């Protein structure tokens, strides 16, 4: 049985995205019946998470897997067990897939070198968050009328790109889907070499709308970034980098990986507006993660066979 790690979307190809999202569609429509029956999925979260942890757990259970959850609290992780030792333990206990969330970039790749189980990166530091980007594409494809409609759509990624693993996954994913991307952030929240992605940097959300963005993808601003060292104030941030009602004309769509700081990245009246895909993003999580689990454990092949 062939397993496959899901570590990063860097260098992802359009065909892979299309087939993964197609499988997610099949999961959502209940066309795969318990593909993970008899498999063991272990959720190892070395960092707090609500929606990612819950949606992976739901995805695994609905797919018929046995699920083991390790969180920081109440496990050997809290006793200081190293990442590698935890992974080796889970491997010997017979895990078929390990879903890993960790505060350091590269943790998932390191774990993958120490287990034959499939490692699925559920977010590693400021590195990657591949299932987030997949569910974003799934949601956006739905909203635009199909995966092929993504091609040529302009998306502005707004906010703290520097500290964002979501940005590092959605940029290659959006690019592989054929979207045109711009970044909107102050220099204090961009990598020094923002040109690393060869993307334009726009001065404000207003500027992004002027540029023709059809999608405004706002990133979460962590509380500890709001103290004045990198941005002067919430009001200045919201004024130039916050998505407001005035940006919603002409069918602009709003996305956010959550949790939203209302009134900071997105004004309160926009979060649940009709143009907001945020609830749909959350809803897409289970189907997309079911598909990823099925692909990772090789179950998708078995079902197809």
């Amino acid at each position, binding site marked *: 049985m062939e397993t496959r790690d899901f570590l990063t979307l860097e260098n992802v190809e359009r065909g892979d995205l299309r087939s993964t999202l197609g499988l997610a569609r099949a999961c959502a429509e209940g066309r795969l019946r318990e593909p993970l029956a008899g498999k063991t999925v272990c959720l190892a979260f070395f960092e707090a998470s609500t929606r990612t942890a819950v949606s992976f757990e739901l995805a695994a259970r609905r797919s018929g897997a046995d699920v083991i959850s390790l969180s920081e609290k109440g496990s050997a992780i809290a006793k200081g067990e190293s990442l590698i030792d935890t992974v080796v333990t889970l491997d010997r206990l017979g895990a078929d897939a390990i879903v890993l969330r960790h505060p350091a970039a590269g943790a998932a790749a390191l774990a993958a070198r120490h287990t034959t189980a499939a490692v699925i990166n559920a977010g590693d530091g400021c590195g990657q968050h591949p299932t987030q980007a997949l569910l974003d594409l799934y949601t956006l494809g739905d909203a635009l009328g199909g995966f092929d409609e993504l091609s040529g759509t302009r998306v502005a990624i707004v906010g703290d790109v520097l500290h964002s693993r979501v940005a590092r996954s959605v940029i290659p994913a959006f690019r592989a889907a054929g979207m045109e991307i711009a970044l909107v952030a*102050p*220099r*204090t929240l961009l990598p*020094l070499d923002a040109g690393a992605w060869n993307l334009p940097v726009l*001065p404000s959300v207003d500027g992004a709308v002027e540029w023709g963005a059809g999608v405004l993808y706002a990133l979460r601003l962590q509380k500890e970034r709001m*103290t*004045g*060292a*990198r*941005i*002067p*104030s919430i*009001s*200045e941030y919201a*004024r*130039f980098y916050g998505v407001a009602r005035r940006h919603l004309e002409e069918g602009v769509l709003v996305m956010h990986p959550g949790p939203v700081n209302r009134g900071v990245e997105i004004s309160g009246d926009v979060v649940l507006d009709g143009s907001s895909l945020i609830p749909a993003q959350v809803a897409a999580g289970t189907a997309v993660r079911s598909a990823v689990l099925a692909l990772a454990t090789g179950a998708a092949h078995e079902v197809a066979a």
Partner: protein
Amino acid sequence: MNGRDGRPADLIVRHAHVLDPSIGLDGVTDVRISGGRIAEIGDGLRGGRELDADGLHLFPGFVDVHAHWRTPGREDEEDIESGSAAAAAGGFTSVVMMPNTDPVVDRPVIVSGLARRVEKESSVRAHISAALHMGLEGERLTEMRLLKEAGAFCVSDDGLGTASAGVLRNGMLYAKTAGLPVILHCEDHSLATGVVHDGTFAALAGIPGSPASAEDAATATALVLAAETGAKVHITHVSTALSAALVGFFKGRADVTSDTTPHHLTLTDELVCTLEGLYRVNPPLRPDNDRRGVTEALRDGVLDFVATDHAPHASEEKELPLEEAAPGFLGHETAFAALYTELVLNRTIPLSRLVEAVSCGPGRWVGGAGSLRVGSPADLTLVDLSEEWNVERGALLSRSSNSPHLGRRLTGRVAGTIVGGALVYDHVGARFGIRS
């Protein structure tokens, strides 16, 4: 006086020796001003009012990117009216006001209020520098994008160095985002623990000294960060030969410009011997080898231009022992004469370089000033290069009198200053009357 169509009639400045290195002008000719702008330069111009400038030199208006007009908060020392009067008397047609006032210029509402007051009260063009950090404390960034919308021209934590390189780096990055230049006062506080230059005279007098490294280390840090971040950075009051050389190294490696002051070009730390509070300034007066190094750097264009750091202080803050006195000198009214007397008359630097350093260079930095090119704003300075005068308390228009040149005799006096075609300073009065 208005012409028949109600617009001010053209003004012709006749027979001045016009010197403007920015357009290669150096000779006696006439200049016509129309609609507040330079309309024409040439011999035998006719029509309109005339100003007889025979025997005077005419330069593009001087520009001072470093002034403390103490408003708001210390209007007893200077206000916009007296500060701009002093600037005009020194031939300055544009200045940049520093934000270390009380309250500090760190909020958009303070900038917009100041901008309104400048409009009403200043006789010269006055740009507002807002603070780089709230309260100049080097912790929280100011709302630079909103400050810019309110009218801020640049940002600076002048008077205080920024304590941490990490904080300064983020400040530069954010200023770049806001599109504002940063003016930096480079001083490392872990080194700058004294009140005068840490040299022979401090040692002999027993006054605590701050070493040159306090400036040099901070200047090096600032330059490295400017090169890395790509921010537009101006390093003000360079006072050591090493800092000047560091600036030179980073030319072409960073978007950086620099200035030095008339006092660091003309005075040395020998004045520490007087033990007089008047001579305390920051950065401190340096030994003669630094003064010469800085002068050569200015002559060669390594340092771009001159700024005065005009810093008025009440007499009760200056008539004190050195260690207790407030640091700072008046600068506007003596700048040109001191530099002409000390550096041009003895042929250390040519007059044309001095004009570049007080006018063209800083004019380019603020944009659209410091040039007599046709179409430019008619900001002009008329100078009598032969007039000798004594620097005396009664002769100064500043509300304060803490000039380090008090009691000295200087050569070269500003005769008239024109801003946007309007005469805002007229030293010679009657002789200078404009004939219709």
